[in-house]
């Protein structure tokens, strides 16, 4: 359930709801971190749920001593009213059998808040790509049938690749085709739930492998930015684009503590 930070419940009617799927390489979550940190989004509440493993820590977006002591939990909501953006960040994994109930509860709340559309940032295992996918861009999009015509037109004009259907049962030759997102975590469940609740949902994902997924996250936010224009578009130079997005202070030591000098 949504629990606001302040006394009143914020009005999210007409807002764009951005969220990550906990997926391979945690790319969606890393991308959300970049968006929340760069846009300096303000925390407006918590999504208190029994579906995620609990976790706490100090403010992951801290920029100074003063703002570093605010406690953060596993599912928090941030907003940027000037751009009518609301973002959910997920920081832990789902408890067994709880991912579907989470999607149901979350999307019910999003629908009742009258958000204009939902955007899901996700990723899929790159080793599952077929030959055609290997030769094309690693980015894909997927829309529920309830996405506004204007968005569909805009996306078509960007020449993006739609997520292809693949055989439901890969080993069988004449198997039916359906949308499969291996390594996508709750992405498919969100898509199915979005369709059944008639929610306008756009899923953006990248084919990735586990490893240092920061470049993948930067790629995904740039992909999103092509459409949403959260930041002013710039040249194609990847270094320049990386500099525009502010990495949060919590990304320090992503691969563990310092090494003992005696090792060398």
């Amino acid at each position, binding site marked *: 359930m949504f629990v606001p930070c302040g006394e009143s419940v914020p009005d999210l009617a007409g807002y764009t709801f951005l969220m990550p799927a906990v997926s391979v390489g945690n790319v969606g979550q890393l991308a959300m971190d970049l968006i929340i940190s760069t846009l300096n989004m303000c925390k407006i509440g918590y999504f208190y749920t029994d579906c995620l*493993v609990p*976790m*706490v820590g100090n403010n*992951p977006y801290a920029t100074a001593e003063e703002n570093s*002591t605010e406690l953060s939990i*596993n599912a928090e909501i941030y907003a940027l009213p000037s751009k009518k953006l609301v973002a959910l960040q997920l920081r832990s994994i789902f408890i067994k059998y709880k991912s579907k109930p989470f999607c149901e509860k979350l999307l019910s709340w999003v629908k009742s808040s009258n958000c204009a559309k939902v955007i899901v940032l996700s990723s899929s295992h790159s080793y599952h790509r077929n030959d055609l996918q290997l030769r094309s861009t690693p980015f894909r999009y997927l829309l529920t049938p309830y996405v506004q015509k204007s968005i569909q037109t805009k996306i078509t004009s960007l020449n993006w690749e739609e997520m292809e259907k693949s055989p439901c049962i890969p080993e069988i030759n004449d198997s039916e085709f359906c949308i499969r997102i291996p*390594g996508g*975590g709750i992405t498919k469940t969100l898509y199915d739930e979005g369709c059944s609740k008639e929610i306008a949902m756009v899923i953006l994902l990248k084919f990735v492998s586990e490893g240092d997924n920061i470049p993948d996250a930067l790629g995904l936010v740039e992909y999103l930015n092509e459409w949403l224009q959260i930041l002013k578009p710039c040249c194609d130079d990847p270094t320049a684009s990386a500099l525009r997005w502010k990495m949060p202070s919590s990304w320090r*030591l992503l691969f563990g503590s310092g090494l003992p000098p005696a090792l060398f």
Partner: protein
Amino acid sequence: MRRSGAPRTGPDAGAAAMAATFFGEVVRAPCRAGTEDEEEEEEEGKRETAEDREVRRQLARKREVRLFRRQTKTSLEVSLLEKYPCSKFIIAIGNNAVAFLSSFVMNSGVWEEVGCANLWNEWCRTTDTTHLSPAEAFCVFYHLKSSPSVVLCQCSCYVAEDQQYQWLEKVFGSCARKNMQVTILTCRHVTDYKTSESTSSLHSPFLKALKTQNFKEPPCCSLLEQPNIVHDLPAAGVLSYCQVWRIPAVLYLCYTDVMKLDLITVEAFKPILSSRSLKGLVKNIPQSTEILKKLMTTNEIQSNIYT
């Protein structure tokens, strides 16, 4: 914030989910996002029969968290803090934190047991909680007879992730209690502490704190720096609950390199004795130290492999 799951370091940082080992065989490397289970879960859900559902229901019933009074052998009909409203709730999680509260807090004053949690999971197979030996894992609640609004919990059993929220609900209930202050004590292994120096250069044990927004007192030690997080249960669960429902709460986390019962680790919690929550509850520190030493020796005898 750090993602949950182990960090990937060194040579396999660029590896795919299928990885080749030194010997050349291809193995399935674990996915950091924990998504492997999701797909299996989905498949399982589709193939589930009525029998499977019944097995799952029975398992869920076995894993239910129950709170009851050992003296009367009756279950609590409402949440513990609804039945015993308190202004101070102190919880120790793990053997070192429990030993600290036993020796320094529970030795002064008379503490009456008000409840006990019955939990069953892979790590904690307590079925008979009426006759618990000191060595067994347990979760017991007490209040101070002279001041019943002080409630203490000694929790040395493992609370699984699927039991965590049930435990919270059975203890705190569904309506938030704002007129209380919560103090949580627990330990973690020092290798979990992320720092730019190597962990081998740290002088453990050392204490770190995390507090909710509504906790206004200065903590007794430095705050846990980014990017460190706390994700063990029930410490993270209790603190999250307090942050969301705006209850003043503080977590004191002792990073140690000895996870079993250890005198030096227990003594590392001593700075907390001067905090507002524990002041007034602690009377005789030298006596407490004696009690603690006795606790250590009792434990050592029990852990002798030749008996």
